């Protein structure tokens, strides 16, 4: 963003507010800053920069499908957080409560949906609603944590490659190309087997003992899965960010930052990355459903989440085995998952339209 005459331009980094007056005519630079180093904002026009997000928010709220998506996601998040404790308090069922254990295992049976079990039970008699909600926690966490991992790696990788350019860029992007060519399933399996069991990194063990108690191998495996999925899903993110940075790095505010002696890491992460945030947010919203689908696919193959833990993918995979006799075992987890993915995709689309006014012209 820049205002001012042709020879003298005031440039503003929209997000961090760093401003400077750069004189392009070659005369002595004039910086019009107040004592605190912040530009005097009374000039009015500059405030427009901050309203980018407000504008986008307004446009997003106009998009009915995106609002629908946000509401469904909100309800889903609240339900998976408070659902399992409520079910335990009201009916006494937990996701891993097997009634037949108490009867001596004599009458193991899958019950159809009823008042007591709104989604029926699985073939061990576990309440399916409780399991779907519990599975939702893991499925949503897979989506969120893996997307954060892919954000951290992908954004840094793409931003550094794009800003430094030249040979470094070439090398970094060829690495991305090569990892693209290796089937991701191979990478996930190797990561899971190399870092599984006794080789689990300490911070993963720490995470799982924080959430479920020390030495919980099943939970460690799940956190490892989050990490592995994140580590294979950053490639496209890196490309998206690199493209953005390439188009941003020659703009005046970068020049201004360089002129005022800002270090390279600070230029990349405080000035460039925040300006590329729009496409990054959009792409991240679309990464969440794709990671969740991948997790479901891995669980379907028996490589993902294992009993007694559940995810929507593993529940659906279990349901498929009994599809003829107990169709509710597939339908409920499957529909819940499809609804969530549907909402995430709509939200992602709505965000893209809202944050990128270019696409709204038509």
């Amino acid at each position, binding site marked *: 963003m820049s205002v001012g005459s042709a020879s003298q331009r005031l440039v503003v980094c929209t997000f961090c507010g760093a401003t400077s007056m750069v004189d392009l005519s070659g005369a002595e630079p004039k910086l019009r800053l107040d004592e605190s180093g912040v530009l005097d904002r009374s000039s009015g026009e500059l405030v427009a920069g901050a309203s980018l997000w407000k504008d986008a928010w307004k446009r997003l709220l106009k998009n009915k499908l995106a609002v629908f998506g946000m509401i469904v996601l909100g309800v889903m998040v609240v339900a998976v957080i408070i659902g399992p404790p409520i079910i335990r308090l009201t009916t006494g069922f937990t996701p891993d409560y097997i009634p037949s254990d108490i009867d001596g295992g004599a009458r193991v049976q899958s019950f159809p949906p009823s008042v007591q079990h709104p989604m029926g039970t699985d073939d061990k008699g576990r309440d399916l609603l409780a399991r779907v909600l519990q599975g939702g926690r893991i499925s949503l966490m897979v989506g969120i944590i893996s997307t954060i991992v892919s954000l951290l790696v992908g954004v840094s990788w793409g931003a550094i490659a794009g800003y430094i350019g030249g040979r470094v860029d070439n090398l970094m992007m060829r690495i991305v190309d090569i990892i693209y*060519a290796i089937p991701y399933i191979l990478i996930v399996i*190797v990561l899971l087997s190399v870092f599984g069991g006794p080789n689990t990194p300490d911070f993963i063990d720490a995470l799982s003992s924080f959430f479920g108690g020390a030495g919980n191998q099943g939970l460690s495996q799940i956190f490892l899965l989050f990490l592995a999925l994140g580590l294979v899903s950053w490639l496209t993110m890196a490309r998206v960010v690199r493209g953005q940075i390439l188009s941003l790095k020659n703009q005046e505010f970068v020049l201004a930052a360089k002129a005022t002696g800002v270090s390279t890491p600070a230029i990349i992460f405080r000035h460039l990355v925040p300006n590329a945030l729009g496409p990054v947010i959009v792409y991240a919203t679309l990464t969440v459903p794709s990671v969740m689908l991948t997790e479901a696919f891995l669980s*379907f193959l028996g490589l993902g989440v294992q009993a007694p833990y559940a995810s929507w993918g593993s529940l*659906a995979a279990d349901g498929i085995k009994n599809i003829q006799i107990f169709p509710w075992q597939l339908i409920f987890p*499957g529909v819940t998952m499809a609804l969530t993915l549907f909402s995430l995709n709509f939200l992602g689309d709505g965000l893209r339209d809202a944050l990128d006014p270019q696409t709204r012209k*038509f």
Partner: protein
Amino acid sequence: MIGFILRRLLIIIPMALLVVSLTWGLIRLAPGNFYSDERSLPPAIEENIKRKYGLDKPVYQQYLIMLGNVVRGDFGDSLKYQGQSVNEIIFRHLPYSATVGVLAYLLALFFGLTAGIIAALRQNSAFDYGSMATAMLGLSVPNFVLGPILVIVFSLWLFWLPPARWGGISNLILPVITLSAIYAAYIARLTRAGMLEVMRSDYIRTARAKGLDEKTVLLKHGLRGGIVPVVSFTGPALANLLAGTVVVEKVFAIPGLGNIFIQSVLNRDEPLTLGIVAFLSILIMIFNLVVDISYGFLDPRIRYE
């Protein structure tokens, strides 16, 4: 142009070797091996196995031997399927995956392009919203849910189609539909976005201004530019479809390459995994090359360096 193609073809070889090397490294990084079971083998037997497969040599020698074999296109015998060469296994299972994959992609192209073009031309109409919502649904329903639902409805309730296995054309219908759903959805969205972008451009205005009828403007000028994103999506998508899609093969009991690949990874069947990875990466790179060449025909503004 010919120089461009030759250069790209030459690059495929070192790239494929690099991918194979990295895959080999990944397999070697993972603990365990193909011969170990829950029971540990007597040391003497283990020694014999190691000698037979050259595992007693230093790692760099093993790597060079592997690389030499791969360069000659000889991946050796599978470790799990005794006495069958990797090439034999790949070419035995490829036709199944390829048949389902190609048919699914054709179906997806047909529905995706049609829906995408109509949606773009009648933007904000009921058809636009309806088809794009359907496409979103296609992207959101996992295919391991869609497949079994189709089986329940068409095989178990209506008895119209066989539920699984390989056989006549009737066996192909359900897997092809299941596989094509997500691709049709993707293509419809890409086509719509591409067409909307192109139909606003100056050269379309020029075409209209010089008095061409709307049909020519749309099909001869608009579509060529509008399907560029679909074409770039087609390269990797088709390569993956040819090599099989695991879920559909599992749900419909099709003896395709996808399951063979997953099994080979799980079994630590190194030669088979390397063979399939090499095959797949070469396929992807060739398709990408074809896509890059076709850009020039679609959009005359694109030039090759």
